[in-house]
């Protein structure tokens, strides 16, 4: 593999890893703080992608889709939390699995009723349709760099939110000891609602910005969901830092696996997970 090809694959893997992180961060927070297994998290990614398709088709602007779509998803998350999820924080994992599996079916059919079962594409904005030439015939699309940049900005924002703000302190307190935090006057129900909505928002955001390069199709949430599970298992449940590192690792293994070992590319990530499990059954950064 010559250097430009290597560079392209490396950039691809980082961009994919960062995108996975957007999903896995919400998933790991919802696991870690509320103790909920959320199989429907992939559906929020799909929701984002279809919102990108619908809104950018309507207004002709991906920026509007990013802002409007994420806002709609956050509202949707708040409603869903209020209506269903908050009643399941104290229930068995088994009940949570079934509830969220039922929701996958429901969301999938609502998507089918609203937008049909065809594959759609979303246009890359004019400004970002450029490519950076690397050699005479190899170049790298600017939009992928734009995705990576947005994800890095959000990751930093998430870090600041959790570690440097008063709200973040309450979130951490709630994750550490729910009853004690509540006794000290933290409105834990509100914190839970906000964390859940944040998770939904991040997943939908990932779906929106990924839509122009991945296209928009039925069942697109399922595959990404299982990848996110792998990321969360490797990183350790509840650890946002672990999710970031393991998402980048998974991105690297998956992207280079497809180039170097195409006949077993699908398996490599899971073998990585198996190796981590042997070494640290609770993930690399279990808190």
């Amino acid at each position, binding site marked *: 593999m010559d250097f430009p090809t290597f560079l392209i694959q490396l950039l691809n893997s980082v961009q994919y890893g960062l995108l996975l992180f957007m999903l896995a961060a919400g998933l790991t927070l919802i696991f870690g703080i509320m103790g909920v297994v959320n199989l429907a998290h992939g559906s929020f990614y799909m929701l984002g992608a279809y919102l990108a398709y619908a809104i950018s088709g309507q207004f002709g602007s991906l920026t509007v889709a990013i802002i409007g779509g994420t806002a709609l998803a956050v509202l949707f998350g708040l409603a869903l939390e209020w209506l*269903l999820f908050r009643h399941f924080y104290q229930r*068995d994992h088994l009940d949570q*699995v079934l509830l969220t*599996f039922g929701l996958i*079916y429901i969301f999938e*059919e609502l998507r089918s009723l609203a937008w049909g079962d065809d594959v759609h594409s979303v246009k890359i904005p004019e400004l970002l349709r450029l490519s950076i030439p690397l050699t005479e015939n190899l170049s790298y699309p600017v939009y992928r760099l734009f995705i990576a940049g947005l994800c890095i900005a959000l990751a930093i924002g998430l870090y600041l939110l959790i570690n440097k703000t008063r709200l973040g302190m309450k979130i951490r307190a709630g994750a550490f000891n729910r009853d004690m935090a509540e006794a000290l006057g933290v409105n834990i129900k509100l914190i839970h609602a906000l964390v859940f909505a944040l998770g939904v928002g991040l997943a939908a955001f990932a779906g929106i910005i990924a839509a122009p390069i991945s296209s928009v199709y039925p069942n697109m949430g399922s595959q990404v969901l299982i990848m996110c*599970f*792998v990321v969360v298992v490797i990183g350790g449940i509840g650890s946002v830092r672990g999710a970031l590192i393991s998402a980048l690792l998974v991105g690297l293994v998956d992207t280079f696996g497809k180039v170097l070992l195409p006949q077993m590319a699908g*398996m490599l990530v899971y073998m990585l997970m198996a190796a981590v499990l042997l070494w640290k059954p609770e993930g690399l950064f279990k808190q």
Partner: protein
Amino acid sequence: MSATKSHLEVFPAGVKLVLWLGLLALLAFPFVGTEFYTQMVTRMMIMAIFAMSLDLLQGVTGLVSLGHAAYFGLAGYALAFLTPQSEAVSLWWTLPLSVLAAGAAALVIGFFVVRTHGIYFIMVTMAFAQMVYYVFFDNRALGGSDGLYIYFKPTAQVGSLTLFALDDKVTMYYFTLAMVLLVYLFLRRLLWSPFGRALAGIRVNEHRMRAMGFATFGYKLSAFTLAGALAGLAGYLWGVQTEYINPDLMGFHTSAHAIMMVILGGMGNFAGAIVGAFTFEYLLHVFKDLPYVGEVHLGKHWQLWMGSFIVLVVLFAPRGVLGVVQALTTRGARQQKDGDV
């Protein structure tokens, strides 16, 4: 955490009566039912074996596996590889080999997954099932995304004499029924054996079991392997009946369906898994068969009805059908109370 739900291990008279009537109905069914429904009930019984195998993990041991379909599918693939395109193969060795293949896979994967707990276990079982899925999906030699055909159904022979052939639909029905009974009696016996009691102990409190000197890892791995092998039996029969196997069968949707069957009937006693499998498969049939209303084909959107049904069951009847039967037959307020979570 998933273990605290109370279990109905010993059946009250009312439930026993219902089960005996059910068995009589199953014995008589091919004489009264049409061929279509006989095949549908065969399929239900196959899923009942699958659900019972999962119940050993989910209900008895308290391990929620979201990847159980992998072992189901593996045995189906084993049958496909063992069956040549030109002639029927013998049941005597293809059945044990397929079951063994599923059990061996469960042993290897179980070695990794059994060391995890709670949420991790759910996610890791699902991820490994996905890995198995990709092994078959990515390789043309293993059938790829299209899957494999099973050209001939197995026969049971002694010398040159054919005892029975699964080609015949009624024979297949009774063979499957016999397998359901065999697996049920075996698992009920196991439930009350020292091994089964140890598994139930792990469900209730694994730390205490370990403190008492039980090597829980070995117990859980044995349960996982056995459950995988029995899922393989179901997968083998599935392959025989449908004559076709593909990777989608091993996806997490199939695994989640099995979890739903076990929940729907009531966990931890195997009879509930049978009831749940029948109920679930019948509902699936009903939902897929819904008519057109105006422009909209209701049956095409069966996932919407099934999804809503699952959500409603989780919200309002988390102890399943047998739990409801029990509440009705005993009318005790006490049982009702510990059913609420």
